[in-house]
Structure formats: C-alpha cells, structure tokens
C-alpha cells in the first residue's frame, strides 16, 4: 500500500493564551479516511502537552494518541512528535488542533495526515537533540526496519517566525521536503518569548538512517527530533490472464496469479502467493511464507527462505537454494533441487518421475509414489522419511535417524552413519543396504534381500521370503514366518523365532535363543560354528517331530554350554552327529 500525505499547507501558533494550538489548515474531508494517521510536531516553551488531537469543528474522534519522541532544551524550547489514528471523520471540513497544552506557553505546531502506514503500530525509529547554534540537527536514527517508511523531522527554536528560516539538509540520509511555504511560529516581544517550529516530511524507500537537520537559521536555542513510521505491507495483488511479467519489490501480503504466461518475480518478502496455470517462471528472492502453485509448466526458484510451498502438476524444475521449512509437491515430473539446508522440512511428493536432490540437511521428508531418485548428500539428522511406491533409488550420504518406507521396489543405500534408526518396510522387492549403525529395523513382507554390515539393535521381520545377512552384532531379533535365509556372522544376543521354515546360520556366538513352534522336520539352527549359550526350548510348544534337536545339530563346531533340555520329546533325538563339546547338560537316552 502506498504511503501518502495530506494537509501540509501550513501550521499554527499561539502566544500564551490558549491551551491548544492548530497544527494544520483546513483539510477537505475527501482527503482522508478513517484509519489514516495524524502526525504532528508541536514546539512550546515547556514540556507540557499536547495530550491529544481534536478537529476544529465537527465530532470527529481519534484513537491511539502517542507522543513518540520529544526533545527539550530546558528553559528554552521543547518539541514533540505525536501521532493518533483517525477513529471517525468530522462532519464538517476543518483543521487539526493539538490540545492539552499549557496556557502561558508560546507554542507552534505543524501536522499532516498520512495514509498507507501500518494500521496498528507504525512508529519505528527516532532521534532527538538539543543545542544552541545556527545548524540544529536531531542526530541520526538507527537503521530503519523496512524500506518503505515515512520520515518526519521537526525543529523547535526559541525565536520568532521572522527569524531566518534556513533550510533542511537534503540527501538520502536527511529528511527534507513538504516543508510548506510559511515558517510557523509566534511573533512579537523579545525573541526569547517566541517559539517557532519547522518540519519536513519525506517518504523513503530504503532503510537508511534518517536525520532532521537545518542550516542557516538565526542562531537560537533549539530542540530537534526525527521519527520514522512504517508503511503497511502491500495488499493483495490479483493478476489474471497476464502474459507479461509481475514484479513485487516491496513487502507483499498476498499475491494471486492466474494464467500467467510470463514471469512473476517477488524481490522481497512475500507472505503468500497463489498461482494457477503458470507457464512462465516464478522467482522469489526474498522470504516466501506460503506458496501455492498449480499446473506450473515452467520453473520456480526460491533464493531466500521458503516457509511452505505447495506445487501441483509441476512439469518443469524447482530450485530452492535457501532455507525450506515445508514443501508439498504433487505430480512432479521434472527436477527438484534443494541445495542448502532444509530445517524442519516436510516434503510431500506424489508421482515424482523426476529426481529430488537434497544437498543440505533434511529433517523430515514425506514422499509418495516416487519413481525417480532421491539423493541427500549432506548431513541428515533426525530424519523422518516416508516413501511410498518408490521404484527408483534413494541414497543418503549422511546421518539417518528414522525412515519409514512402504512398497519400496527400488534401491536404498545408506552409506553414512545411521544412529538410532528405525525403518519400517512394507513389500520391499528391492534391496536395502545399511553400512552404518542401525538401532531398530522393522520389515513387513520383504521379498528381497537385506544386508547389514554393521550392528543391529533390534530387528523384527514378518513374512520375509528374502534373505537377511548381518555381518555385525545382532542384539535382538524377532522373526515370524521366516521363509528365507538368516546368516549371522556376529554375536547374536537374543533371538525369538516363530514358524521358521528357512535356515538360520550363525557363524558367531548365539546367546539365549528362544525358539517357539518350529514346524515338523525343520530345525533352524544349522550349522552353528560359534558358542551356543543357554538355549531355552520351553516344553509344550514344540508341535512337530524334531529329527535334529539343538543338541544334534550337525555339525556343531563350537561350544554348547548348559542347555536347558527339560522337555522329554526333544530328548528322543540322537546325538550321533555332535562333534563339539557339551558341558553341564542333562542328556537322557
């Protein structure tokens, strides 16, 4: 919204009789609206007042009266900048008054009405100064908060209005302009009995610190002050059937584009953008809070922070080099590249036939129906990744904490450190290779191979027909309906197997194994080349005939230590093939 000013033709003065002072000439009712702001500078002998604004006629009212800044040269002159919002318009054209002043003070004021300022709290920065010279200066404010602001500077002097007025210093860091034709002040008597006020108003488009300074005035005691006020963020922009370009250079609350064949560019903060059927390019160089695009054929580039993005039917490319908090994409057939950090990202990609590249860290990603490849080459921490129907490949080179995969038919390779990992796999027809540390792995209906080169904290498999190979240690494994092959070359702390039809081969130690409901004719412990410690075979749960009991495994190349064989049915087996040693066992014929 554009900042505009109204009613700067003149000010007013009073030499010690009234408790108010006019700060403007008559302002036509059509020149302002409810919600506009009145801004005025009031200079006086003392620091008393003003306490508010009033219209000279009618019933108009104000709200939110605030003295935003003041400067006081005690005993000589003070100047204040006050602001209030127009609550209701007067019924008749009139002028503005600053009220609540002290009777007996000489006073002068200059004010105006501004539209397009922030509706709730426009005040931003200020500075004030006092002195005695021909060149008053407020001193510089701090750097402004935003580019679009209104700067208002005022100088109060202890002298009459027929003093040499001087001029406001100009330049990008000085407030000048809108100074009116007349110098405002009292006149008569001694010079020190008068008060004058001069002001300048400038609408700036940069964040440069502002100073109100004058040169060439009659040497007087003076007080100077400057204050800046923020412009409102740009309002909603609707573009329909635009074949050209749309560029937003200022703060923008909402932008809606339809059927844009050209380019749409936002160079600063864009809170929300909605685009439909964009065939051209969209570039956001500033912060983008929420972006929703549909049927985008061209490219989308976000250089700054992107809080949330939703894309539907993107055929072209998407590049995000800044921070991306959340992104949702559906039917992406092109290339999606994230080259920097992704913090707290939720990425939802459906029917991706292209590729997703993550060059930075990824906290959370949700992918559905990905047919292309997903590659994260950076550090990945505390990741929660959901992927459904991935027929391509996924590669993570960094840390992966948690992943959930459903119907994965492609290849997953995790070559970095995998700590406290929890992976759920459903209908895996491809292969999964983990070379780092694995905290927990759950698989359901795995038909392909799983290779673990490192430690596995806990592993649960249900209806697995593929193979599991663990070259690291296995702390606990629970397998149900195992049809495949389990080969362990490391230490196995505890294993619970139910209805195992396949073969388990342990080349390392097997500790505290619990086997329940083994089918007839199968013993899933052959061969064990390491030490078998305290196998527990509880009675009453063995349904089939055991041809080869754990004690008759052939061959046992290691050590069998204190087997608990208290159930008679298993003792019918023979030990003819035992080539190892048995210690502390109760073996009945």
């Amino acid at each position, binding site marked *: 919204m554009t900042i505009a000013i109204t009613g700067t033709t003149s000010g007013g003065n009073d030499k010690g009789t009234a408790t108010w002072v006019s700060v403007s000439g008559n302002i036509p009712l059509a020149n302002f609206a409810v919600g506009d702001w009145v801004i005025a500078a009031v200079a006086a002998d003392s620091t008393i007042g003003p306490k508010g604004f009033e219209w000279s006629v009618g019933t108009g009212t104000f709200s939110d009266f605030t003295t935003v800044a003041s400067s006081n040269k*005690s*005993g000589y002159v003070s100047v204040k900048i006050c602001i209030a919002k127009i609550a209701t318009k007067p019924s008749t054209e009139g002028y503005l008054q600053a009220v609540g002043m002290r009777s007996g003070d000489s006073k002068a004021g200059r004010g105006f009405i501004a539209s397009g300022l922030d509706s709730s709290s426009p005040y931003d920065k200020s500075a*004030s100064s*006092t002195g005695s010279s021909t060149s008053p200066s407020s001193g510089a404010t701090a750097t402004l908060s935003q580019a679009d602001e209104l700067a208002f500077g005022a100088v109060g002097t202890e002298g009459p209005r027929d003093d040499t007025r001087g001029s406001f210093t100009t330049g990008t860091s000085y407030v000048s302009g809108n100074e009116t034709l007349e110098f405002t002040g009292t006149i008569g008597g001694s010079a020190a009995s008068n008060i004058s006020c001069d002001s300048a108003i400038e609408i700036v488009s940069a964040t440069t610190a502002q100073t109100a300074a004058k040169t060439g005035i009659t040497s007087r005691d003076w007080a100077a002050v400057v204050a800046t006020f923020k412009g409102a963020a740009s309002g909603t922009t609707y573009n329909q059937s635009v074949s050209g370009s749309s560029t937003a250079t200022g703060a923008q609350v909402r932008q809606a584009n339809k059927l844009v064949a050209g380019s749409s560019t936002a160079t600063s903060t864009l809170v929300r953008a909605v685009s439909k059927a964009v065939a051209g390019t969209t570039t956001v160089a500033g912060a983008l809070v929420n972006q929703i695009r549909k049927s985008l054929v061209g490219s989308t580039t976000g250089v700054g922070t992107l809080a949330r993005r939703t894309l539907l039917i993107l055929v072209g490319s998407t590049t995000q080099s800044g921070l991306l908090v959340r992104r949702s994409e559906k039917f992406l057939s092109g290339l999606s590249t994230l080259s920097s950090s992704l913090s707290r990202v939720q990425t939802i990609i459906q029917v991706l036939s292209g590729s997703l590249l993550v060059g930075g860290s990824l906290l959370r990603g949700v992918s559905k129906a990905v047919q292309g490849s997903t590659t994260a080459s950076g550090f990945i921490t505390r990741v929660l990744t959901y992927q459904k129907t991935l027929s391509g490949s996924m590669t993570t080179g960094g840390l992966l904490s948690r992943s959930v995969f459903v119907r994965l038919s492609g290849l997953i390779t995790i070559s970095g450190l995998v700590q406290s990992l929890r992976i759920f796999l459903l209908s895996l027809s491809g292969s999964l290779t983990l070379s780092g540390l694995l905290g927990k792995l759950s698989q359901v209906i795995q038909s392909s191979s799983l290779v673990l080169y490192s430690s596995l904290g806990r592993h649960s498999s249900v209806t697995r027909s593929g193979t599991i190979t663990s070259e690291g240690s296995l702390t606990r494994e629970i397998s149900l309906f195992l049809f495949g092959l389990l080969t362990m070359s490391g230490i196995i702390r505890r294993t619970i197997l139910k209805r195992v039809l396949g073969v388990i081969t342990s080349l390392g130690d097997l500790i505290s194994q619990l086997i329940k409901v083994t089918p007839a004719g199968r013993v899933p412990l052959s061969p064990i080349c390491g030490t078998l410690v305290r196998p527990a075979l509880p009675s009453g749960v063995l349904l089939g005939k055991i041809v080869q009991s754990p004690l008759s495994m052939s061959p046992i190349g290691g050590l069998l230590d204190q087997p608990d064989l208290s159930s008679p049915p298993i003792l019918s087996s023979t030990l003819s093939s035992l080539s190892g040693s048995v210690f502390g066992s109760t073996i009945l014929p």
Partner: protein
Amino acid sequence: MATQTFQHSSFGNGQVVVEIDVNDATWRVSRVRCINNSAHALAARVLSGGTEVWTGTAPAGQTTQWNVAGVQLGWDSVNSGIVMGNYVVQVRWPA
C-alpha cells in the same frame, strides 16, 4: 546545594526519559540519566563543536546514569535553562 533535574527528551509515550541533573550551587551538569522502561536500548552522545566527545548506551528495561564531569555544560539562571554553549546532546531510540 541541591540537585535539579530537567528532562532532555522522551520517547514512546514516556517509556523512555532522558534527564539531566544540575547542581544548583555550581550550576554545572553532574549527571545524565536514562530511565528506560522500554524493550529497546537508547543511545546517547555529546558533540562539542561537531566533534563527538562522549557516547553511552542505556540498556532496555533499566535506569542508567552517566557522570558527565568532562562535559562542561552550564546554567542560565536568568532563563532557568541549561547553557549548551558549543555542546549538542543527541539521543536516539531505539538505539
């Protein structure tokens, strides 16, 4: 002897007030004080002939006092006002 206090400037509807203490026996300014009840710091400086001779920052939410013995401000007993001479006191808020 007593100390008289005069307000130099204020901001944010009085949330921030800068005061000057004057010794009415010597009519010398002894201290500058910032009562800052805002959420932002205030910056102050003194110029002498356009040259900065002193700077200070008053943190947010507290009162800060500076001894300004090196800044020889005076007192105009006729107008009951501070004689600035060649000095300019500037403050800005937020800093």
